[in-house]
């Protein structure tokens, strides 16, 4: 049985004009029908989800969403079941989404209402360029600070973890030590046998490069990366290539991004998945509202919903991944992030230093 909690918020005009406010919250249970007045904030509460923006007359409205994967579709369908709001999704690459949002914003014809999934650094770039809408969702308070943007431009949902895909047979054949820490990738006999994607085109590789620089510091970090570059025969265009190359015996270790599952290990007896014990890269898959949306209220409902417990449970189940909320259980077979070491990551710095890091990286590769 759904209930509506009406929170009456008294705004004092003088404070409002000065950007300050004083709230007096009163919870009142009502029936589905409600009356809104200009000084009332209404929180709709469904089963394990809530939104201060939802009204039942939104049913049948449609939102447009950009993202980097079709795999969000089941999540959008559950959202529609809960709210009646439909979402059309378009799958593009990270860079394409950013360019498209810029073009739409510049032309004044904003098509997308939402952006869901992609690299956190691209979201930060978009926010820097004024392409995202700030929104402080009440449900965002349940997320740790590291899982969301400090200025409320985006919120993390599912987590992507960097791991190593290792061909056990080739480790044995080549008398190599099973890698445990990043330094182990520099073993002499592993030259030409480490596969990594190109950080300019792959979020996984860029995340690794920037995380290593943040963790080890610039000087030691670049020293390590230069040695790592020597071990890699070529940098693949797609983030998924290294894992495939290792499975097929073309490389011994592949630096890979995963949702924390063990599918590769289960399906390939010659494969071992390793999370480096001295830390690994990771990032949340963000959700954000596009600046200029003509459906701001509905878009806010989606953000409220997806970071609510119900939304995160749906994300965890659909994407078979760990999620940014701590009160949602980890799906079976998914790596518990409490059992591995994550690199402390400053996503803001990753985004802002992207150009200079890639320029320095290219110089190292060309040498």
């Amino acid at each position, binding site marked *: 049985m759904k209930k509506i909690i009406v929170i009456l918020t008294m705004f004092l005009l003088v404070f409002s004009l000065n950007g300050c406010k004083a709230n007096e919250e009163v919870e009142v249970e009502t029936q589905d029908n409600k009356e809104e007045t200009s000084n009332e904030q209404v929180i709709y509460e469904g089963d394990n989800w809530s939104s201060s923006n939802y009204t039942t007359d939104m049913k049948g409205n449609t939102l447009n969403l950009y993202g980097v994967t079709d795999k969000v*579709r089941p999540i959008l369908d559950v959202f529609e079941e809960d709210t009646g709001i439909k979402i059309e999704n378009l799958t593009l690459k990270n860079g394409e989404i950013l360019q498209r949002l810029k073009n739409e914003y510049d032309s004044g014809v904003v098509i997308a209402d939402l952006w869901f999934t992609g690299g956190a650094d691209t979201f930060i770039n978009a926010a820097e360029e004024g392409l995202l809408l700030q929104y402080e969702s009440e449900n965002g308070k349940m997320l740790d600070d590291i899982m969301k943007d400090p200025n409320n431009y985006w919120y993390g949902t599912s987590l992507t973890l960097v791991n190593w895909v290792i061909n056990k047979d080739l480790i044995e054949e080549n008398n190599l030590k099973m890698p445990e820490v990043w330094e182990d990738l520099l073993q002499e006999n592993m030259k030409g046998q480490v596969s990594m994607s190109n950080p300019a085109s792959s979020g996984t590789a860029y995340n690794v490069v920037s995380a290593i620089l943040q963790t080890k510091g610039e000087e030691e970090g670049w020293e390590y990366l230069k040695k790592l570059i020597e071990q890699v*025969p*070529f940098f*693949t265009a797609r983030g998924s290539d290294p894992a*495939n*190359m290792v499975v*097929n*015996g073309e490389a011994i270790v592949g630096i890979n991004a995963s949702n924390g599952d063990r599918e590769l290990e289960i399906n390939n007896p010659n494969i071992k998945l390793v999370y480096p014990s001295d830390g690994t890269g990771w990032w949340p898959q963000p959700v954000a509202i596009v600046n200029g949306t003509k459906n701001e209220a509905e878009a806010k409902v989606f953000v409220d919903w997806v970071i609510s417990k119900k939304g995160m449970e749906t994300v965890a189940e659909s994407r078979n991944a760990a999620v940014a909320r701590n009160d949602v259980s980890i799906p079976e077979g998914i790596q518990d992030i409490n059992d591995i070491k994550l690199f402390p990551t400053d996503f803001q710095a990753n985004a802002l230093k992207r150009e200079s890091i890639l320029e320095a990286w290219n110089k190292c590769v060309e040498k």
Partner: protein
Amino acid sequence: MDKKQIYLDNAATSKIKPASVREAMINYYDNIGCSPGRGGYQQSLNAGRILLEARMSFCELFNFDKPENVIFTHNITYAINMILKGMLEEGDHVITTMMEHNAIIRPLNHMINDLGIEVDFVKANEKGEVNLEDIENVIKENTRLIITTHASNVTGTILPIKEIGNLAKKKNIVYMVDSAQTAGSIEIDLKELNIDILAFTGHKGLYGPTGTGGFIIKSPVENQIYSFIQGGTGSISDKDIQPDFLPDKFESGTINTIGIAGLKAGVDSILKIGIDKIHEKKMKLTKRLIDGFLKNERIQIKGVIDIEKRVSTISIYIENYDLGMLSFELDDQYGIMTRSGLHCAPYAHKTIGTYPEGTLRFSVGYFNTEDDIDCAIRALDEILNTRSIN
């Protein structure tokens, strides 16, 4: 949502290639882009180096010592035509088999009519197996060439190339092998085998792009072959006649360098993975597919069952069923790509009794998975169980 795609038409081309193939081609496009052997500047030399290194990779794969004897052409059909038309003269006799592809059948039939050569097409049994004695029995004094496939592109049956090569050597006849279905999948040791000319395609088991192929020729057999095509080679340009040294004798015009860059990467991947591992995995999957088919009484496997005597190409036949429709249904409903029909090998289908309707062909590749195979078996069972006989 994207439908899962399962590619089981590797006998036509290897759709999925090692990642290094694309990277090598992009590297040529982005960083080299020049014509090989046509300038003394660095990037032209780099382009030439790609060709030389590719020839060396071929030597390593086929256990051969002379990189200059590795000749690149547009595809294997060009390679076969260059040899046949550069070598045979009126009155020459050629022996081939009924299991050949049109790449051999058509030029030979054309030359029977146009040039007056003689050809014996040696019969195979209904499983595609060729008897060595049948070849020996048709050898004549004017037999100049024996040309056979290494394995049928219809039934997957392997031909006894070692024994045929020994026979050809004993009789002093040139032996040419079409390795389109085996190069990169089965070890071919040119030091051990009496093969004079090995024709290869680049885009199947060697994982190169389309538009690549060629032949490896053992010296001094090249002296028996007239250069069918003449033109610029970038060498001894002061002379107005075709060079007689290799590879220039057979490589006129600018080589498909970007394609060869990809082909080299493909061959290097095979060397890196190991051809024994590639063969083992493909045949394990092939056995799984055959075992699945054998459980369905309506499916007839055309060719040998024993995986020691075959490659990973499997032709099946179903009585009173439109196999073209079946191939369409597999693709349309399950995303499984197969090939129906005659597979450019009409004589082979006459041999195995499936002419003119043909068969439905499944060909397994190294990049397939057990899940792909199980899906294919399940899909075929589902379609056949829900459709009555036509």
